[in-house]
């Protein structure tokens, strides 16, 4: 396989005594879409912020295109983080309120010391490709509709010539038809520009529709990851299974029996012993409270962190010491 464009190793993010990301590793490959799913509070947004450089990693390493992100970012000098852009959950809030759209769009070019008439026109052309007409250029962010603000934020991110785009809940607040439009747009941009996406969402329909691979997070850890189809068809982790069963699908043949989890998501500042999911797990056994399972790669391409995976002839694998 090719070298990953992004690789995160044993990342931890701590805020005070709370560890929101507790040892997350994954890789993202060229022109691939990885979907990161999990309920609110599982740490997926912390992962996004850490990748974008907004939150420092407490430990762990991050390589982008093979370069460590640790060296300080200096204006005008190339840096590994230049290749990553983040689409914020609230795109309107990510636009500086006293700038017109044209100033906002010119800014990434100026920051990259890349502003020229040719580049500006190329950007505007890319803009009309994603439905941003020149009539919006003199508007202020508060004069834009939600969809327009989203496109401006997207075009701004593209102007920075990223290789990787992290999208935090890209479809939040959009109705279904617009969601589909946006996802198609993201896909066509991926095909055109060879972008790699990390899509962060709690919406399984969105993730399932566009992701090549998914990673399921629970309480700061990835508990299952692998090709989307494999995992959606036959989840191995009881949490993934419960998550998928809660998903509404219109197709009756795909409807699963709903698994309702007991209790609430525990506090990340005081995670349960052993497997973090065991207090809520429908198939937990006593050993689950003692041993914390590692992500183990399976022959079908997935990796799962569970001692007693479902949909598998239950052979407890290596129970570490």
């Amino acid at each position, binding site marked *: 396989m090719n070298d990953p464009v992004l690789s995160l190793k044993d990342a931890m993010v701590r805020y005070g005594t709370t560890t929101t990301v507790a040892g997350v590793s994954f890789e993202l490959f060229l022109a691939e879409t990885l979907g990161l799913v999990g309920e609110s509070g599982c740490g997926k947004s912390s992962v996004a912020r850490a990748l974008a450089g907004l939150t420092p990693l407490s430990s762990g390493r991050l390589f982008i295109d093979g370069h460590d992100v640790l060296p300080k970012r200096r204006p005008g000098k190339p840096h590994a*983080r230049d290749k990553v852009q983040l689409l914020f959950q609230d795109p309107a809030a990510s*636009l*500086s309120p006293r*700038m017109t759209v044209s100033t906002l769009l010119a800014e990434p070019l100026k*920051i*990259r010391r890349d502003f020229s008439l040719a580049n500006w026109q190329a950007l505007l052309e890319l803009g009309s490709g994603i439905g941003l007409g020149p009539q919006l250029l003199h508007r202020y962010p508060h*004069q834009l509709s939600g969809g327009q603000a989203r496109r401006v934020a997207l075009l*701004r991110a593209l102007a*920075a010539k990223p290789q990787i785009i992290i999208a935090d809940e890209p479809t939040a607040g959009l109705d279904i038809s617009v969601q589909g439009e946006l996802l198609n747009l993201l896909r066509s941009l991926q095909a055109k520009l060879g972008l790699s996406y990390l899509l962060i969402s709690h919406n399984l329909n969105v993730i399932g529709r566009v992701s090549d691979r998914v990673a399921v997070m629970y309480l700061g850890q990835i508990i299952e990851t692998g090709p989307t189809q494999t995992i959606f068809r036959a989840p191995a982790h009881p949490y993934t299974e419960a998550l998928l069963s809660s998903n509404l699908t219109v197709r009756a043949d795909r409807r699963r029996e709903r698994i309702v989890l007991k209790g609430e998501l525990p506090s990340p500042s005081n995670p349960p012993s052993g497997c973090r999911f065991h207090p809520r797990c429908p198939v937990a056994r006593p050993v689950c409270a003692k041993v914390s399972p590692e992500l183990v790669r399976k022959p079908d391409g997935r990796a799962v962190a569970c001692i007693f995976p479902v949909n598998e002839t239950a052979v407890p694998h290596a129970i570490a010491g």
Partner: protein
Amino acid sequence: MRFILDIARSPGGTFALVAVALVCLAALAAPLVAPHAPNAIAPVDRLLGPSLEHLFGTDHLGRDLLSRLVYGSRVALGIAFSVISISLTAGVALGVTAALSPRAVDLLIVGLFDVVTSFPSIVLALALVAVFGPGLGNVVLMVSIVFIPHFGRVARAQTLALRNSTFIEAEVVLGAERWRIILHHVIPNIIGPIFVLACMDIPVVITIEAGLSFLGLGVRPPLASWGNLLNDGYTYLDQSIWPALSSGLALMVATLGFSLLGETLRDTLDPKLRKAL
């Protein structure tokens, strides 16, 4: 242009614009507007009431009050604008620095602000002028120091509120330089309330200057300043109310004008209140 029309839309704004324009015009075109020389003494005409010749009457040396008020506006506005520009610049620089710096620097700057604000502004200005001596230059400098925390505090608070907002984070992700974030994204978004504050502080500076002059620590007597005029008027109040009344009126119009302008500005500057398109 549309901006001025926006301000003029409310009655308070209209009054503010007229009053401020009047005072500014008087200050800029003093030699053209003043009917008499401001320092021409005419002992025969002392303490006259209003007449066609002397619209506001004369003072105890027979000088034309209107002319002195017109020339006084130069001193008042000159001092006010200099003080405000110095303290606004220094205050915003310090306040933004405090908000974006490590805790130790922040505490130091806020501590300085606290020391300055712990004295009533007129008392501190008085003490500073008493130590460094009266005179126009010193008055401007000392009053500026008194007003720095005003702007510094607001700038710091605004910046703190802004620091973690999404659009600043978006700039960080784009790799924007620190100066770009401060100049293009922080300052334009905090400057509205600061301009409003500046407008509302102008009358305060004018009254402090008048107060200092009234106490004999500001502008030296032959030069017409509203404070001096008020002081003279106060001395001869039992013989004629016109010197005190007219200088008080001038102070009032200027003060009210700038305060109302500040308030109207506050409402107009908020882009969200402005209708789209």
